């Protein structure tokens, strides 16, 4: 296991970085924390000719609350800085908890939220909850920037719509009507294990009536998957245990898991049922947890 040689660039500005990426072409990869990319390179799954480091780009690690109440998370924020962020602890502690479930402490101090998204690993922990919270992302390229829902970002395992010259710079969570959200991960060990199945939910409750629900399933489809039928059946309804159980079953039917070394498709489908019900109950009762 070794890292082969590559060219290394650490541009000072974002525009320089985008231009470099365009110039170097598909052999060039962006590195933020690098935990995931180094691992892939050591396993000879990835052979970048050049690496463009975001190390010197300033302002991309911030987590802040805008005057319009939007929460902005810089793509270079590490998982542990999410956990420690007073803004998130106040507004979306569920995100702190989701970040906490990533890998282990030593990796959480290096790995970034942007990396967790751009690598597009189906079992990643942050995408389901960020999608459930309606997060948008900002992609900056040589021709300017675009903002789009995170939900539209993924196209398959390790694949997304990001272009060669683009860099993911930030997340914007502007959803204000949500009353609760949570992420439940089911893994085969309490630390340092990938999700076998995971469910993120966000709800807007009015009394005991569900005005809006988003349910996003992780590790049970090529991309984080909205369980839209389950969401629909909750919308506008009075919440009962039976309804939540039913929502779990519907979400389970919507999932498209595969069997692999971590679990069979059958097991994962049933986990989706259980986790969806539990996550909904938790978000409804306890808010953003």
């Amino acid at each position, binding site marked *: *296991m*070794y890292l*082969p*040689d590559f060219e290394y660039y650490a541009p000072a500005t974002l525009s320089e970085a985008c231009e470099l990426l365009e110039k170097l072409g598909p052999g060039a990869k962006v590195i933020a924390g690098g935990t995931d990319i180094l691992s892939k390179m050591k396993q000879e799954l990835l052979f970048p000719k050049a690496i463009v480091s975001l190390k010197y780009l300033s302002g991309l690690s911030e987590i802040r609350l805008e005057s319009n109440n939007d929460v902005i998370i810089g793509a270079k924020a590490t998982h542990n800085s999410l956990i420690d962020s007073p803004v998130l602890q106040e507004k979306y502690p569920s995100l702190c908890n989701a970040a906490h479930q990533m890998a*282990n402490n030593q990796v959480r101090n290096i790995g970034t939220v942007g990396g967790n998204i751009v690598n597009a690993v189906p079992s990643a922990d942050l995408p389901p909850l960020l999608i459930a919270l309606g997060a948008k992302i900002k992609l900056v390229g040589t021709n300017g920037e675009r903002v789009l829902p995170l939900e539209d970002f993924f196209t398959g395992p390790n694949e997304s719509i990001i272009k060669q010259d683009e860099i993911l710079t930030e997340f914007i969570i502007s959803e204000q009507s949500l009353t609760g959200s949570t992420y439940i991960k*089911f893994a*085969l*060990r*309490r*630390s*340092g*294990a*990938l999700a076998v199945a995971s469910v993120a939910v966000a709800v807007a409750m009015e009394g005991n009536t569900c005005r809006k629900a988003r349910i996003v399933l992780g590790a049970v489809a090529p991309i984080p998957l909205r369980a839209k039928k389950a969401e629909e059946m909750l919308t506008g309804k009075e919440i009962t245990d039976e309804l939540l159980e039913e929502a779990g079953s519907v979400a389970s039917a919507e999932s498209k898991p595969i069997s692999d*070394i*971590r*679990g*069979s498709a059958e*097991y994962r489908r*049933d*986990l989706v049922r*259980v986790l969806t019900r539990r996550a909904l109950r938790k978000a409804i009762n306890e808010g953003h947890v």
Partner: protein
Amino acid sequence: MGENYEVIGKSVPRIDGVAKATGRAKYTGDLKFPNMLVGKILHSPHAHARILNIDTSEAEKLPGVKAVITHRDVPSTKYGLSPARWDETIFCIDKVRFVGDKVAAVAAVDEETAYKALKLIKVDYEVLPAVFDPYEALKEGAPQIFEEYPGNINTEIHQHFGDVDKAFAEAYHVRRDFFSGQRTYHSPLEPHVSIAFWEGPKVTVYSSNQSVHYLQYHLARVFGMPMGNVRVLKTHVGGGFGGKLDPTGLDFAAVKLSQITGRPVKMLYDRKEMFYNNRGRHAQYMELTTGVTKEGKILGVHANFVMDGGAYTGLGVASAYYAGALLTVLYDFDNYKFDMIRAVTNLPGCGAQRGHGQPQPRFAFESHLDHIAEDLGIDPLEIRIINARKPKTVTINDFKVDSYALKEALEKAREISGWREKKGKLPPGRGIGVGNGGFVSGAGYPCYRTDLPQAVAIIKVHDDGSMATLYTGAVEIGQGSDTVLLQMAAEAMGYPLEKMRIVAGDTDLATHDFGAYASRQTLMSGWAVKKAGEEVKNKILQTAAEMMLVVPEQLDVKQGVVFLKAHPEESLTFEEVARTYFVKYGQLIGQGSYKPPKLGGTFKGAAVGTSPAYSAATQVAEVEIDEETGEIKVIEAWDVHDCGMVINPALLHGQVHGAFYMGMGESIWEEVLFDEKGDVANGNLAEYRMPTALDMPPVTSELVDSIDPNAPWGVKEVGEGATTPTMACLANAIYDAMGVRIESLPLTYEKVWRALKEKREKEKA
């Protein structure tokens, strides 16, 4: 425990603790020698293939490559544990037999060049059909992996003691169950490393291993060298657990590459390559039939096992014998039949892992026994007390068991775990289970056929008596043997521990010893150390008697003070006596050697399982199960051990914790998996899931009094025995919690989920 000891029985900190805490401790991988090259091994990409041609010319041309070797460059001598099953060569000659088999090796100026060179070696293979399952391998028409093992049968054992059929005919109840165990891997935190260099006709090999002698023996035999020209030594070793006993390809390749290049060569495995080298626990398939009386007394047992040996034998033949041999120790019964087939398959070769061969049979037997207890309406802990072996007995397969406090361990475990208050009374989803285990305190016979003593130790007192050095071939791999042996030496000599130094695990500078396996060192190396210490003590007393004009019998020595027993105030220091000895007679040296008396019966395989002393252990654990997901939480565990006299309680309890930890990992999380091509699918530490601190429950480790007459100060083993009860203990706790029996290891969340689902469906129907 009666006697007052000065040094043993005390939790002194380990002698290597400060070096390890400060990062000063050098492991083999930390060593650098001038001009050193880096070597790597080329592993087979196929599970089974004929080698048609190997072309190394491109690799040799790569700048920075200093040597490329294949089977053509090394002896074709076969090696393994026993001559009948010497089946492995340094590199594959005609065939590769698993994904990861050793094909060639390179030495280069750095790691990157070495890896690049491996890619340039062209090997033409004719791919052959492969077989990955032992039952498939045993079928007629299965691909034949070795010429010497027709039908892929590597080892076949049929032992019968007493008359099992008669016992079953007379039994009140006969029950048959089937269990299986998985492949696991030791996963020491330190990867294997080997560094070799030559000086004239002599090679020196630093290897991260468990037995410098066993490696020296192999290297000398395979390379046709006198043992004296092979020096094997080790520095600190980052864990072994059985996985660093068999020689690795690194050891052989480093020796040859350094000979060719004339430069030191360092070779190490990365994590996945460690899984290729393997030698981990076999997957075993275990059918057990037991006949009992109405009162639960076991009358007879039939163990009918199959094990997946993987591609090569190594220590695996011993694993096969151990699997059945030690089933007779814990419970006393007069009729026993053991049938075993060890099949070869196209997967990495299996061998010895903590508890060697028997944790899985214990899992099977202890699960089976719980079923029998339930059938008879007897409490599971009680049925174990009914059958527990008594001290000073002989097993049906001729093992002499002197001290044995299993019954006391069971009773104490019942008390400290609150068994009576908990069994059948815990809230839904919670359960409690019990399992028993134990192990040999050193194998009665050396690991290969030889008449050498088990252990030799020398203690040299420095000229001025201010220090003493213990020389031993025992190997410290983290278990604490250096510390324990020094405590024993100091106790035997009557010398302060602080003045003791150790030279261990070096075939040139230290003494002969078979090393760290089969939980042998505290007893066997300990015997040699005790005798060496006593010889020093006798010389000191003799010399002091001359100095004090008394007879030696009137004197004693403790903590470096020689005194008249009747008038302790009349004394000399050890130092001045030792100096006087040196002036008068030369170097003050004590030597000790240990060879057990002839042990065991005369039937085929009678040697395996013999030991001077047997440990016993009871474990109780409490679990909580998520009934919807099958998730298992181990809430708390208790271990009560009969391990004889304890030399260092802190180290001993650390062994129990670690053994339970490993057993728990193997129970629930750990399993080596393969893809459809036979390649390791989880050769990393994210997917080969050893428990983290968050998965580990509180463990209470307690002891029962026991002194074994065959051991120095009455010591016995602890480090392996405590792994053997765990799997069944947890399986039984799950059964208690949910009423589902998981018969195959690991007891994964998914298996529990599936069993619960099936149970619900059955109840509905």
